[in-house]
Every structure is written in C-alpha cells, then in structure tokens.
C-alpha cells in the first residue's frame, strides 16, 4: 500500500530537485528516498533564510530534548537523535511505521552561522533552529543601489 507522506506530487519532485541542485551545488543533503524512513532521510528537514539567520525545522515527534543533539560548526549543521520503543511482554505489534532507533543528518549551510547564538526550541514534536549568520556572512551581502 502506497502512503503519501510528503507534500510533493511525484511529477513536481524532479523539477524541484533540479532547481535546487542548480542553485546550491555545494549543498549537501540527505534527500535519499523520501518515501521511506531510513536514517539518511529521517527526519525530514525544512530550511530557509530569513535574512539575518538560517532557520531549520524538523518534525521529530516523540523525541525529548535529551534524545536530541544539535551541533553547529562553521557552516555545518548536524542533528542526531535516538528513540527507543520498548516492546512489552504479551503485546503484539500489528503495525510499525514510526521511526525508531538512531538518526544522524548533516547539512552544509550556504553561509557560516554563529554557533554561540543558535536558538533551539522543541514544541509538540517540532524542532526549530534559528542560526544567526556570522558578521562576515552578513557583510558579504551586496546591495545594488539604483544610481
């Protein structure tokens, strides 16, 4: 049975992926197989630039802050996590779709961020990271003035 877990209709995925590859050639990612929850592609990540910071969001239901480890170094972001599901005696597992075990996801961000100023919040299973760009990264932005 095919379950649609992500938002993209299959047709749009190729165009989107091509555009993304073209714009961010150095952008390492774990696209992997979006339809399976293996440790390369879990959790799914959304990353955006709001001008001053790079923001990242991940859906990590059932994880507590102590189960997660976020590391920022230069322009490298790494998120690690671990969730064990204990199987109790006398129970039958009829279906198992949720992710269990360990995951590691590493991302190369387009600019350097300040690891001391990273803000991480976890609410209702959503991990949100706000990573302010370094002064050098901000200064690099070139404004084109009309003359």
């Amino acid at each position, binding site marked *: 049975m095919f379950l649609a877990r992500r938002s993209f209709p299959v047709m749009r995925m190729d165009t989107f992926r091509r555009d993304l590859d073209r714009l961010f050639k150095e952008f390492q990612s774990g696209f992997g197989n979006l339809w399976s929850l293996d440790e390369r592609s879990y959790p799914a990540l959304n990353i955006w630039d709001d001008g001053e910071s790079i923001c990242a969001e991940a859906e990590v239901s059932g994880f507590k802050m102590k189960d997660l480890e976020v590391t920022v170094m230069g322009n490298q972001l790494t998120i690690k996590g671990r969730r064990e599901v204990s199987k109790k005696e006398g129970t039958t597992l009829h279906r198992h779709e949720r992710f269990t075990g360990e995951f590691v996801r590493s991302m190369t961000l387009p600019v350097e961020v300040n690891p001391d100023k990273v803000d991480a919040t976890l609410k209702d*299973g959503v991990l949100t990271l706000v990573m302010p760009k370094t002064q050098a990264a901000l200064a690099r932005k070139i404004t084109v003035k009309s003359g």
Partner: protein
Amino acid sequence: MDSSEAIEKREATTAEVEPTRGGRTYIPTVDIVEHKDELLLIADVPGATHDGIDIDYERGQLTVQARVVPRHPPERINYLLQEYGIGDFCRSFQVGEGIDADKIHAEIAEGVLTVHLPKAAELKPRRIEVKAR
C-alpha cells in the same frame, strides 16, 4: 425494463474521509500495538495539540483527525530545502466491532497521539475453568 436502460448498481468502496477545512492534509505514521485489554494506536502528529484532535469511532471504523496550526515562514521567504509540507493529519482504520466505544480515550504529548481502544468484554481472553466431575 429494457436491458439497455438497465441502471447499473455500483459497488460502494470504502468511504474516504474528506477534510472540511482548506489546506493540505497528511497521513500520519502509526504503530498499532495490541495489549491484553486494549488496542493502542500511536500516531506521529507533529505540530498538533490536544485541542485540535478529533477521534471518531463508528461501526468499526476509527477516524483520527489532528489540526495543525500553520507555521510556515512568511510568503516572501524562499526555502533553501523543503522536504515536507505542513498541514492537518487524518487517517482512518477498520478496527472491528470488538471495541468498547464508550471507553475509548486518548492522550497527546510531544506530537505523539496515543489512542486507547479498550476491548469489549467478550473479546478479552478468558480462562475457561474446567471442573472435574
């Protein structure tokens, strides 16, 4: 009745639960665990809170809907990477009639919804005592 005018009786497929609100709806991943006294349905519904949950059990069909408050970045912001969308969750299950519907209860924590479906008394394993005559 002329056979060419015969009205075809169409077989009904399982009715799909349609969302009444706009926006996208996603299918949450679930684990189903059977305990001695109850069936547990555990669903990952990140971004949902307890006041946004609707659980309906009717004629053996369990429908779970979870409302998610939109948290998209402002329109002008372009994603650098977008691997998932944000929207409500909805999923239906054919559970069967052996559930005590009045005793269904659920809790949600850290984006995980756990639905307890207590088994109706007849379905619980019973030890049959054999008396010696």
